[in-house]
């Protein structure tokens, strides 16, 4: 039968690879990444961490400033548990949405707890004799990320 413009659907045909071969390929990749991690053959690790209702992309020896108060004294070590992504040069581990706690460990130290610079809030409505001035200095906390470690327990 001759091929017309309506023989095949107008969208491109999508074919997924064979599931059995895919499973073998996935197992192979997981094994290789496990080997790399246990051999320690990765350079600098970076991680995406959900902390203080914000997501941060951090590495070791990083400084982070949060716009709120943390209930920890200066010099306390903190472990950040909600890790979304960990990556090195050759591999990345993407969490759905979070990675396991036995897989990644992110440690940080509280360095300083200060206030921000005095921000001036002024509301002014012309010709209405309306002017309000307020000076806000929010508390801030500075953390230093000490280490990011990964353990070879992928499956």
């Amino acid at each position: 039968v001759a091929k017309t413009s309506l023989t095949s659907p107008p969208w491109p045909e999508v074919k997924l690879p064979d599931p059995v071969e895919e499973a073998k390929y996935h197992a192979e990749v997981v094994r290789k990444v496990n080997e790399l991690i246990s051999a320690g053959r990765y350079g600098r690790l970076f991680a995406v961490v959900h902390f203080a209702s914000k997501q941060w992309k951090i590495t070791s020896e990083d400084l982070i400033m949060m716009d709120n108060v943390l209930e920890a004294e200066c010099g306390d070590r903190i472990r950040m548990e909600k890790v979304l992504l960990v990556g090195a040069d050759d591999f990345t581990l993407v969490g759905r949405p979070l990675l396991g706690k036995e897989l990644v460990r992110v440690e940080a130290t509280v360095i300083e707890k200060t206030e921000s610079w005095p921000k001036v809030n002024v509301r002014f409505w012309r010709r209405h004799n309306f002017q309000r001035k307020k000076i806000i200095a929010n508390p801030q906390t500075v953390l230093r990320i000490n280490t990011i470690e990964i353990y070879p327990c992928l499956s």
Partner: protein
Amino acid sequence: MVVLSAARWVRSRLSDRFWRVQEVLKYARHFRGRKNRCYRLAVRSVRRAFVRSTKARREKKRFLRALWITRIEAASLEHGLKYPAFISNLVKSQVELNRKVLADLAIYEPKTFKSLAALAQRRRQEGFLAALGDGKEPEGIFSRIVHHH
């Protein structure tokens, strides 16, 4: 005799006028023209500057989000995906990265961004097959939902 209020001919006069004026002028020192020297002009300029900075603090969030979206769109187009497809497929694969972090990854970690784009593309194709093939459950591997307890 007890006098509770001062007599009427005693007036109170300002002695710290200089410092009250300097409080306003210190915020105007980097302005252009006479408004950095003359108090009468500086008061108006400083007030407008403060009002604009308060309003700008709220608009900065909108502006930055639009900037991140533009950057993510440019990066995903380099990998052959459009922005709505990229974001929706990432969300469907339960990857909850926000636009700020995605823009940073696109700039500083190109390999990671490429892998995320490949993940979104694969999830997109599985979505097409699920919509067209009409199977009983999603056959795709990347469409499986991860349940946490």
